């Protein structure tokens, strides 16, 4: 993954060591990272670079430094967590709808809104999608776990 990054993991770690957190937080790389763990696995100093990426994403999202393009990943992840908080398990159809709607509110891109519109019928034809998704029974406990772990207003 590092090949396509504006600032690769090694240099991100160096920026942090030198105290330039604000530059690291602005890097496109932290949103390009797919958590594949290659950097952490290969680091000769055993630095958990992927874990550092997680921390940078959390800080960036909290401080609101991410640009609208970068926000797409945050919006997806927030929609994902809201979905689990509500259902206990992921409802893919709901997630896609919610993600598309929130990115539309942010960027007003109609083409992105409708880009995957043909996917749902294709998945349904293959019985890979259910209109009514599964839910955990004890959803109240899931909501309580969320409330104990994070400030709900962040989602």
């Amino acid at each position, binding site marked *: *993954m590092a090949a*396509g990054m504006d600032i690769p993991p090694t240099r991100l770690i160096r920026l942090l060591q030198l105290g330039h957190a604000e530059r690291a937080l602005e890097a496109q790389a932290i*949103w*390009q990272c*797919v*958590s*594949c*763990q*290659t950097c*952490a*696995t290969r680091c000769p100093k055993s630095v*958990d670079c*992927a874990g550092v990426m*997680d921390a940078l*994403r*959390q800080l960036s*999202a909290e401080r609101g430094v991410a640009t609208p393009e970068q926000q*797409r*990943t*945050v*919006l*997806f*992840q*927030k929609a*994902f*967590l809201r979905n*689990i908080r509500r259902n*206990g*398990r*992921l*409802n*893919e159809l709901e997630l*896609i709808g919610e*993600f598309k709607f929130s990115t539309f509110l942010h960027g007003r891109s109609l083409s992105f809104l409708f880009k*995957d519109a043909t996917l749902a019928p*294709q*998945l349904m034809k*293959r*019985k*890979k*999608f*259910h209109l009514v*998704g*599964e839910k*955990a*029974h*004890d959803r109240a*406990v*899931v909501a*309580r*776990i*969320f409330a*104990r*772990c*994070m400030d709900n207003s*962040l989602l």
Partner: protein
Amino acid sequence: MNLAYYPGCALHGSSNDYEQSLRACLETLDVHLKEIDDWICCGATAAHSLNQKLSVALPARNLALAEDEGFREMLAPCPMCSMQLLKARKALAEDEALRRSVSEIVELEVRGETQVLNLIQLFETIGLDRLKAAVKAPLGSICAACYYGCLLTRPASVVEFDDCEQPRSMEKILEALGGKTVDWNYRTECCGAGMTMANEQTVLDLSHKILSNAAAHGANCLVVACPMCHVNLDMKQPDIERHYGVRHAMPIYYLSDVVGLALGFKPEALGIDRHFVGKA
């Protein structure tokens, strides 16, 4: 053999073909899965990207649910789920104060003793000799590029499975079933994982490289053991072909698909007919 089963959201959603084929194989091999009662999502990338505590608590509750049902072993066929479960298990084992506080958060005592297996490990536990003995239709026509992706072997200190740079466990299974495998370069490169929706271009680029490299080394199919790899390489393959103006037509099988075929199942019984890319 009885073990707890944590399907995770993907196997009960758009990757239900994976569940179909692994259930078919395991029933034939006398492995009985007991789905964990009222399991919840592991939180996946979203949780560990946005909230550290949540990314331990969600899998921890599932570990506790399995322990309450008396299970010592659990199958988690999605590498994202198994990595999250193992990461939580490790964190809890190393920090008693954390274990106590997470137990309170999830409203269950989490001992963190349940062993978590991925599907390759389960087949290894069943044993290559037993698999070999059960073969009804050797995989003579298959020349597979075994694709591990990222989370099956990484982070190595968490998943403690196979060699993280040169894994061989899937090849050994394929060869035991009479199939051939190829040596190729992208076995542990990432396909883009859960970025399919949010960062599609990354997925198209990475998956195109994986498909091209497998074909260049003479593979006639890819074998995966991850629902996200399957989505990116199979479901997105028509998009990859359109974007790059190439034709891959590379069938993508779950490991349980090829095991099932060798055990004598018809492709339809394994859900292979529900993949996006058909037989070449």
